[in-house]
């Protein structure tokens, strides 16, 4: 502290008059020009950080982190047709991907079959796979080692049906449920807050979520039944600290709902996982993960009384920031993604998806996808950053930022509590307007050049960059609808009717919906047919247009 050089530098840091507005992170925190011991005055190594793998897990949830097990390289393996997606997944595994995420196409996301009039023109859209029936799930997963590779279904409102299909296909392949790996995103709260692919009002949706949670905790101990997602909140405009606070508050809500339904916290908390975005601001991003681990472990242990140390661990998948990618000079996105990926690794993520540079135009080509995957391998194998655990722990700046992220999160928790909790806050439009305000402010900062996007609002050049893009297959939708029509013709309609009336009965009552869903999908009842029965009983949710 009495080092004269340090004191001199500190004075310089205080005196220098700079435009403070320029030095704010994405959450709006003012960043000082220099950080020192006085910025973390009550810092206590044991209480605030602890060893990696030990409570409160600030430095990471495992003792040896990437030396023990590298993060899962989890790229997207979904493309329109289930068989094509299957081929893509095999290619990704061959290139060194150790997990895979499967997105659904817009109709499946919205609970519509490919032959629904609302689906016209959107079958196989958005880089997602079209799942109508068990047949599609079978083609998608054909020959994949489901007990070895970890599959993440980017599935939300339709999760009970997708889970039923997954369980049915695993059964056909002879894999015991207890050995099934993978994740169902199944995070309905963030749908109302940001992604907007909801069908029913929040409360009946929560009942379905709890049904899946109970089914998985009783039958699938290695499977993650919910991936509580901040990514979508951030993509809709939430700042990093809003992403942190809102996601954790959602996590606590699932814990409370599970307990309310009679589950013991330690029976399901260890299998809850998270999904964060790696934003542009490098150190802010790292502080967000560290704060998340600390808040989660303390709350789960102290407030919800979990005793199993596995319940205290905040396990997280990360994706680089799709919304930070620019259509202007798209190859610049390769550098953006690499920097974001590095920050996710230094933050201690368990799993990572790097975006392809052409995503501001279209879904990726095999070439751009490969480049994205290579960024991860170069960080893992060439940069040396994995040689030691939590290399940034103890940095004055990182620890001060982590503390600030934490204390602002608690302010948000109080605000949400005052609104009556997460579901009430959704019903009152709190998230929708908070997120829209942040999105507006961000755009305004870009317009006023308070935030620079290279090639977009600074260093702009006129030249058009020619890049190769993926061509959509115009025949796919016709083929998919024809296949579905044939499937619907060739099944026993009486069995279908019986299954649907069983689904109706269970939905109207309070039994777990999973067993009847598994039976229904095995009898070739389609996803759209099941969801339509649920819509009929639960009603549809419409949000007020808040902007």
């Amino acid at each position, binding site marked *: 502290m009495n080092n004269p050089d340090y004191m001199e530098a500190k004075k310089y840091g205080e005196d220098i008059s700079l435009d403070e507005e320029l030095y704010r992170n994405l959450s709006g925190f003012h960043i000082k020009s220099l950080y020192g011991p006085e910025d973390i005055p009550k810092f206590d190594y044991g209480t605030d950080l602890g060893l990696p793998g030990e409570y409160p897990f600030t430095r990471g949830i495992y003792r040896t982190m990437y030396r023990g097990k590298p993060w899962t390289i989890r790229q997207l393996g979904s493309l329109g047709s289930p068989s094509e997606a299957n081929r893509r997944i095999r290619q990704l595994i061959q290139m060194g991907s150790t997990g895979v995420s499967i997105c659904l196409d*817009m*109709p499946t*996301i*919205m609970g*519509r079959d490919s032959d629904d009039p*609302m*689906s*016209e*023109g*959107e079958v196989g*859209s*958005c880089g997602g796979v079209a799942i109508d029936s068990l047949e599609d799930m079978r083609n998608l997963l054909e020959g994949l080692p489901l007990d070895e590779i970890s599959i993440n279904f980017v599935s939300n409102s339709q999760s009970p049906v997708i889970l039923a299909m997954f369980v049915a296909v695993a059964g056909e392949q002879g894999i015991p449920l207890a050995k099934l790996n993978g994740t169902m995103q199944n995070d309905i709260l963030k749908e109302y807050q940001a*992604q*907007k*692919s909801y069908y029913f009002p929040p409360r009946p949706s929560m009942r379905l979520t709890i049904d899946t949670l109970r089914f998985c905790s009783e039958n699938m101990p290695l499977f993650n039944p919910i991936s509580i997602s901040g990514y979508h909140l951030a*993509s*809709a*405009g939430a700042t990093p600290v809003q992403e942190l606070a809102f996601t954790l508050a959602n996590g606590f809500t699932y814990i409370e709902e599970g307990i309310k339904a009679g589950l013991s916290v330690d029976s399901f908390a260890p299998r809850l996982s998270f999904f964060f975005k790696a934003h542009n601001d490098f150190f802010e991003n790292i502080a967000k993960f560290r704060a998340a681990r600390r808040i989660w472990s303390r709350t789960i242990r102290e407030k919800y009384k979990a005793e199993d140390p596995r319940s205290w661990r905040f396990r997280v998948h990360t994706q680089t920031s799709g*919304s930070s990618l*620019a*259509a*202007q000079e798209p190859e610049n996105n390769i550098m953006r993604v690499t920097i974001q990926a590095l920050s996710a690794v230094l933050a201690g993520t368990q799993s990572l998806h790097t975006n392809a540079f052409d995503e*501001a*135009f*279209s*879904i990726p080509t095999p070439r751009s996808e490969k480049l994205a995957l290579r960024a991860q391998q170069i960080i893992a194998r060439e940069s040396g950053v994995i040689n030691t655990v939590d290399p940034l722990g103890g940095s004055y700046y990182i620890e001060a930022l982590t503390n600030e992220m934490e204390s602002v999160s608690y302010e948000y928790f109080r605000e949400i509590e005052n609104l009556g909790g997460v579901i009430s806050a959704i019903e009152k439009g709190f998230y929708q307007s908070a997120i*829209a305000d942040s*999105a*507006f402010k961000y*755009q305004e900062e*870009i*317009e006023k050049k308070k935030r620079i*996007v290279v090639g*977009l*609002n600074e260093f702009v050049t006129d030249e*058009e960059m020619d890049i190769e*893009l993926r061509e*959509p297959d115009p025949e796919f939708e016709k083929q998919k609808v024809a296949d579905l029509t044939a499937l619907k013709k060739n099944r026993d309609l009486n069995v279908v009717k019986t299954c649907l009336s069983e689904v109706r009965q269970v939905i109207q009552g309070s039994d777990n919906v999973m067993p009847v869903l598994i039976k229904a999908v095995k009898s070739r009842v389609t996803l759209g047919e099941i969801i339509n029965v649920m819509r009929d009983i639960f009603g549809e949710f419409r*949000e007020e*247009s808040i*902007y």
Partner: protein
Amino acid sequence: MIKGKKKKIKALVTKVGLDGHDRGAKVVASMLKEAGMEVIYLGMYQMPENIVKAALDEDVDVIGLSYLSGEHLIFTPLIVEEMKKNGLDNVLLVAGGTFPAEDIPIMEEMGIDKVFRAGSLTESFVEYIRDNVKE
């Protein structure tokens, strides 16, 4: 005030089909409001018929479409046709979002007056709307 046009410009901002990526549409709606226009935000999950009906009912000067899930070439002709059917020739049609650059001339040929790419700044589209709103 606004280049000889007396009345406040009225804009309808919306999304077509099943896609719920509404960040861009909401930001644009706010930006147009900031710029002094009256904004009808119709929100997500609209079909061409609803959009045109709302445009008629509200007597808007401009319709803004936000496309993010690759559905732009499917819905654009449907909306243009619905507009023609209902005599909305004097309503300006603009679009923005995520799509390949080479689709922009195709969309304009289909009948969109102007397409703005992701990353376009507010000034560019506010100015365009002010200069091109049809009498």
